[in-house]
């Protein structure tokens, strides 16, 4: 009996895979998955060129690195010019502050051939220094962690799962072809699990492949030596963790949208509600944070991202920190939650009726 159900699940998966992988409606899922790969690839191509540009500029406008590092805010423009000589690029503009009063802004750019320094002066005093150092693996892995947690999991995998899982049942109700399934000797629970697994297979393959490609693209600009020592020093573990978290996100979000497609006439509304809830997670008090999937997924991430980096000051005040869950607890929570949601979906499928068109 059990092996028979297994055979049926495989048969359902076989029927579904064509739809989940190759649906014409689903092309945008591949675009979502591909976008971050393109981003990292673009960066890997751009970074060495930038280094070459800085090296050329440093040859034309030599500045000693020691002098560059000694510049501090508050210094006057003359002092900076005295220490560093002429910048390789400069710009001046005026800001009217009254009928006859102006404020003068000056921007200087210097480089030692590796780092890029931007100095911003106002009324002759150095107010602000921006420094771009050459890429290091440590720096990039924080960027990767940030993209992974704030774009990839929350948007790409999320919407990918919306597209695939909501349509498992809903799509066939719209096509008016669900009844063919319901007229076979397959228990509704078996059908539901089979469809869920088919969705998982598709999303896991698409999104873990994307994660792997993103990491490969990120590592591309670094030499063999640097990559080798990164991998040897825990890099493989990080890569494994990212792949696992991606798959786990598909398990979690997949179950939610499987249920949404079964329980709601218009599942886009619950999907939007979940999106808002998961995004608001950042600003929720710690106890409520525990009620979202993204909290547990983030707890599992191997590198801490810096969410506050680019947010306005006021918003950062609203962010509350919660102690991340332990890895075992996070994993268990996501799995138990998903299992429960799939079970609810099975119950719903048992009483599902066919009434196309009258919705």
């Amino acid at each position, binding site marked *: 009996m059990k092996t028979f159900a297994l055979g*049926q699940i495989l048969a*359902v998966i076989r029927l579904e895979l064509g739809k989940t992988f190759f649906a014409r409606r689903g092309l945008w899922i591949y675009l979502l998955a591909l976008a971050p790969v393109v981003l990292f690839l673009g960066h890997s191509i751009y970074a060495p060129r930038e280094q070459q540009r800085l090296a050329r500029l440093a040859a034309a406008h030599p500045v000693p690195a020691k002098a560059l590092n000694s510049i501090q805010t508050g210094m006057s423009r003359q002092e900076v010019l005295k220490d560093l000589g002429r910048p390789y690029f400069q710009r001046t503009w005026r800001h009217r502050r009254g009928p006859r009063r102006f404020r003068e802004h000056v921007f200087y750019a210097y480089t030692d051939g590796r780092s890029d320094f931007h100095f911003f002066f106002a009324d002759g005093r150095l107010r602000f220094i921006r420094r771009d150092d050459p890429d290091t693996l440590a720096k990039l892995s924080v960027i990767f962690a940030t993209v992974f947690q704030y774009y990839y999991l929350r948007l790409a995998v999320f919407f990918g799962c919306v597209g695939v899982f909501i349509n498992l049942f809903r799509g066939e109700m719209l*096509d*008016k*072809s669900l009844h063919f*399934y319901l*007229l076979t*000797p397959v228990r509704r629970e078996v059908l539901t699990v089979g469809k869920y697994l088919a969705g998982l297979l598709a999303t896991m393959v698409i999104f873990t492949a994307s994660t792997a490609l993103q990491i490969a693209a990120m590592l591309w600009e670094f030499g063999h030596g640097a990559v080798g020592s990164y991998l040897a020093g825990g890099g493989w573990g990080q890569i494994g963790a990212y792949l696992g978290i991606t798959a786990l996100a598909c398990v979690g979000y997949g179950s939610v949208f499987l249920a949404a497609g079964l329980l709601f006439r218009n599942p886009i509304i619950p999907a939007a509600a979940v999106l808002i809830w998961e995004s608001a997670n950042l600003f929720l008090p710690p106890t409520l944070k525990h009620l979202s999937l993204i909290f547990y997924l983030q707890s599992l991430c191997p590198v801490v991202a810096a969410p506050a980096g680019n947010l306005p000051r006021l918003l950062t005040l609203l962010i509350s920190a919660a102690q991340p869950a332990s890895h075992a607890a996070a994993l268990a929570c996501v799995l138990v939650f998903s299992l429960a949601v799939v079970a609810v979906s099975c119950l719903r499928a048992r009483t599902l009726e066919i*009434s*196309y068109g009258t919705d």
Partner: protein
Amino acid sequence: MSDTAITFDNVSRFYGEVLGVNRITLSLSPGITSLVGPNGSGKTTLMNLMTGLVRPTCGEIRVLGVKPTEPAKLFRLVGYATQFDSFPKGLTGFEFIYSFLRLFGSSSAESARLSAQAIAQVGMTEAANRKVAGYSKGMRQRIKLAQAIAHNPRVLVLDEPLNGLDPLVRIETIDLFRKYASEGRHVIVSSHILHEVEAISDQVILLNSGYVVAEGQIHGVRSEIQERPYEILVRCSRPSELASKAFELDHVVEAQLLADGGGVLVKTRDADRLLRALNHLALGGIQIEGVAPADDNVNSVYDYLIGGEGATK
């Protein structure tokens, strides 16, 4: 006993406020059974109830002893071709039948053999490897039929299976029904045209507005319709005189004075002749103020079902 019959025990189904079928109690034995009734009379609802696509609001259904909520058992016994004219996207006729047969647990080779066999039975072998999307209406009807019979079910449920078939294919399809019925299986077909199925049916169930209005062997049903008297309400002066005159007519079954004293309810087997006779009485001095069918709805349904013959004979 219950193992060969399909039974409905006091089954009702409401769609919200809308009545689908009401208080249906039926026992269907093997052979060809036709569900006949105008659109919206509940034929599809009955079939969906039988196959678990919708659930009864109340009442019990058993198909050869199996509950419709047990698909794993039910669809070893039942094949259902629905009225929906839609198919999974991108499949050929063969792939369509084959891929769902795989869910029955047969091996790949066995499924392929059964698919080819079912397709041959409906005469679609030549078109089997073309996409269903390119089929004509008649071909889609036939491929649905093939899908319903592919796993060799003991109960075939077919919703309007003759719709859209050209005359030749129609004859072949009816032969297929007969063959299945002669093997002791159930063949349940629906139609909104009685004469389309009356010649082939062992049993006919007439439905109207969610109720079974007649059931039985076809000859019984037809004569039951034809012999059922029309009830006509006549508003007139001197009603008791009209009632006694009406009684003298041989086609009048009953004439009943209305309680308000302003008319007579006449039951007749021949409405036309009654109307002519009323004209005659009017000439004789009784003032006829109005004539109307007392039970418009039921009469018109019967007229519709038997093609208007009952009213003019």
